[in-house]
């Protein structure tokens, strides 16, 4: 491998990663007490390569796929058990995303 040279950006990024410029990250806890971390494969915050290319683009495209069956229950209200009907007020997330309720504290 020592005779192979990275010539494009992605290859250079991979090379930098292989050299250990970025240490392993295993958790990015939210900034609030007793809260939750991420799933990285992909997660809510980051994909398995510690980037964002693996996430839905934009996130709103598949938001209800995340919430209805509780893929990321720490970050998005799950509608299966804990917050049924959370998305009822907004049927098209990509268009009406400002109507989506943010749940802060309390039951």
């Amino acid at each position, binding site marked *: 491998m020592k005779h192979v040279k990275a010539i*494009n*950006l*992605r290859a250079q*990024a991979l090379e930098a990663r292989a050299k250990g410029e*970025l240490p392993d*990250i*295993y*958790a*990015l*806890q*939210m*900034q*609030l*007490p*007793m*809260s*939750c*971390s991420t*799933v*990285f494969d992909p*997660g*809510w*915050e*980051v994909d398995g*390569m*510690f*980037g*964002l*290319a693996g*996430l839905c*683009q*934009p*996130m*709103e495209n598949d938001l209800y796929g995340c*919430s209805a069956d*509780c*893929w*990321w*229950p*720490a*970050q*998005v*209200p*799950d509608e*299966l*058990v*804990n*917050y049924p009907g959370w998305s009822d007020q907004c049927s098209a997330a*990509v268009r009406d*995303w*400002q*109507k*989506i*309720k*943010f*749940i*802060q*504290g*309390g*039951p």
Partner: protein
Amino acid sequence: MIPREWTKALAAVATLSFLLGLSPPVLAAPAGLPKNPLFALKCGICHRPQKDGRVRRLESMRKSPEGWERSIQRMERLQRVKLQPGEREALVKLLCQSLTLAPAESRKVFYALAGKDPREEIPPGKEKLKEACTRCHSYATIAAQRRTREEWLKLKSLHLSLYPALVYQLREIDWPMVADEILKSLAKTFPFETPEWKAWKKRPAQSSAGRLAGSWRVIGSQPGRGSYVGSLELKPSGDGDYEVKRTVLYEGGQEESWTGKGTLYGGYALRAYFSTSEGRTKGTFSFFPGGKTMEGSWLCMDKLYLAGDEIGHRWGTGEAKVLSLSPGALKQGSSHVHLALQGIHLPTSPRPADLHLGPGIAISKILKASPGQLVVEVEVQGNAPIGERHVTVGKASGKGILVVYDRVDYLQVVPEFGLARVGGQANPAKAEQFEAIAYNRGPDGTPHTRDDLRLGPVKAHWSVEEYFYSPEDRDVEYVGKIDQNGLFLPSAEGPNPQRPFKTNNVGNVWVVATYRPDGTDQELKAKAFLLVTVQLFLQETMN
């Protein structure tokens, strides 16, 4: 059996004490859950005492105040418990009288309770726990609980009922089987009964309020704003509640004064809420046994980048100590430096000879002297040895708070891995505050080794650079901006029509600090990784 004569004598002493108006003897803290009408009304229908007198489920687990709060919120959400304002806090207070973490146990998860660190270290050898637990919640969520073996094992059913899709979500492992294995291990690691808890339970029940009340000397720092000194006044207002007044003076000269209300949980954990000019701010304070020292942290819940850590020493204990110095790093050859020593119970009329800062530093004048602060003028010789200094003045001393250096060798940007969230319209944005910390190579002459000297934050020039991950994503143009105080403010949430696929204003970038030390033409540079990611739609533990 107690001899009858002794009983008579004890009764006579008790009667005499009562007649003389003396306080009754201090009682031991309640061993279990005390009887309480609110608890009986709101919780007692399901959580009934068993034959052995223990309240079903609850007296088999211990949690932090935040943990109990979250459990009660779940009961409100799913079990239709209706609580009036203030009742949730009253129930948490009741549960924490005996069913909370001992101070020594709480200290290990203080970072999570205070919400101050976005990263955490999971102990080595916990690979299965990382696979099955901490991919969805923090390790502190586990480590801030103590349960009987039976209660730990029940968590499998709880998870499957609350989050039934997790079996498919974590489909690459056999979650139910792995959970069984992990929960058996956790029952041994975090049992309900521990030596720390047994010792803590023996504390005098009525002593905490009086012991913690009064004035505390506070020393702390806020990333992006610098260090501060001040006071924390605690005035009991009954039933474990306090009126809290916090006044601090920043090194830049700004003074801030907050007043708020606090509740003491378990005799040592104070949670205080302040209304400040920036928004609602939560103070998390933990008092150490003996009531002489404490550690604290605060976080503005409306602007999560505003946060600080502090320590406190109680006035009136008589223990003298030097807590911090400003500046905390002295350069060789500096002259006429005004050095402020912050401390507690410092001598009020010291002579220069009473102050010792190590070889090569001469004290020329004492400018101000008070029990909390001593300001002196010092001369640092050109050949003063570089390294950490032990500071003493009279009986007071302090370690690791002063260094002597010859030059700035390198910079470090903290946090090394930042996390910001887009927002500001329908969802709160999360900004990230960076700091550039200067370092000296230390006595061994080699940079990036353990003896390097931390010189403190410096005023750097800040910029954001592309982190090459996805070709042509041009994240720098969309994710947000950094100001010259190191504060990164993310862009708004929602799809952005100007980006490919209308994707959000998310991305990963380098945050770069550039600094030129005084008197040199050498430019130092350091960078940190910043992930600007999607917003949250849920924050359960915010109150």
